[in-house]
């Protein structure tokens, strides 16, 4: 069962339509999950507040090695903190999420994604494909970056570290390519 974390604000239904999981904020359901999707809409602090009661369960599950997919804020919360506001993230990855400083911010719209490392998340997807972005904060390029997007700042548009997958764009809003990314995650064994 795939647990789609209910962050009280977000595009849960579109995601769940494809991954066919269970939208939940019940720690017992999350404990039973064999995959987790963390969709994110909202601000860093707001989302961290909203998952207060299940934060430890999510961290434990990620550390147990089950596949995790963070979407947008679900990528950002993997870090210790964010320039967006106070509060601690899940601290699965060390460092801080930065604010975009070039061009118009937020970064809104369809932008190209350059695949720089192989990841099963992008199987069947052409390099340079368009995905939909909607964010003001980003993870800098790092060892786990598998795809980048150049928006003046180089955005880690997708990352993978072992069982942890994360995308800055919204696959649930990115047409056929986005559906493929979600299916790729769903079908991971």
């Amino acid at each position, binding site marked *: 069962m795939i647990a789609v974390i209910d962050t*009280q604000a977000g595009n849960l*239904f579109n995601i769940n339509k494809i991954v066919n999981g269970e939208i939940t904020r019940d720690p017992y359901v999350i404990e039973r999950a064999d995959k987790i999707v963390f969709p994110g809409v909202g*601000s860093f602090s707001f989302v961290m507040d909203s998952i207060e009661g299940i934060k430890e369960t999510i961290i434990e599950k990620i550390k147990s090695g089950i596949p995790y997919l963070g979407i947008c804020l679900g990528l950002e919360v993997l870090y210790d903190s964010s320039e967006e506001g106070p509060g601690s993230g899940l601290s699965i990855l060390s460092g801080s999420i930065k604010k975009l400083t070039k061009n118009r911010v937020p970064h809104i719209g369809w932008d190209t994604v350059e695949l720089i490392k192989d990841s099963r998340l992008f199987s069947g997807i052409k390099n340079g494909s368009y995905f939909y972005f909607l964010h003001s904060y980003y993870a800098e390029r790092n060892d786990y970056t598998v795809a980048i997007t150049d928006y003046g700042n180089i955005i880690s548009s997708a990352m993978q570290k072992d069982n942890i997958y994360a995308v800055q764009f*919204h696959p649930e809003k990115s047409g056929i390519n986005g559906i493929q990314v979600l299916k790729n995650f769903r079908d991971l064994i």
Partner: protein
Amino acid sequence: MLAKRIVGALDIKDGRVVKGIKFRDIRTIDDPVKLSKKYEEQGMDELVFLDIYATNENRGITYDLISRVAENINIPFTVGGGIDSLDKIKKIIRLGADKVFINTYAIINPDIIKKASYEIGSSNLVIAIDAKFNGSYYEVYSNSGEISRNINAVEWAKTVEELGAGEILLTSIDADGTRKGYDYNLIKKVSENVNIPVIASGGAGSPEDFYNAIQSGADACLAGSVFHYGMYTANEIKKYLMERGVNVRI
């Protein structure tokens, strides 16, 4: 590279898509979900739903419509019209809309911009500005273009950015529905003065109008009539733009 966006406008009244001219003379067009799917297939980058009578009739947008659209399309969409509380904003996002836009309520109570951007995130909050040239400056109007506010649209745009708005949906009341071209001067003035994306709205009639709006500084171009009446598809507009060096998603 970030693509310029073509945005389809769906004005909603009683659950149906309608279209007026200069905010008046309203005609029924089609079922919103059916039309949304068609537009997605034709290359639309984004959709905006406006419940055009919500503010003036003091009622909320049809929530049922939001979930139906969310279930049926895989491109982003924005919802607005008659939104007057943080609860409504949160509910709309929760039902599957990507962005919410507010207009009248933000003018009456600018503090909502701060509060909403904290909860739903700045990127998901759009402020709609309806403007009309009054002989000396572009003046902000509220309540579907009925009430003039003695506020300069350019100054208001700067204010909403400071308060946390993530995007501006900028409509020229005079140009709306005329298909005679956007108000390029308005687009230029506003986009030069803010650092958040600006969606140009009102007056699109030909592919050239979209091109000119982008040249004037628009990050996205919204249109209703040209799509509703089948004059052009989003892909046809984008092909025209691409041939002229504009970066679009095709």
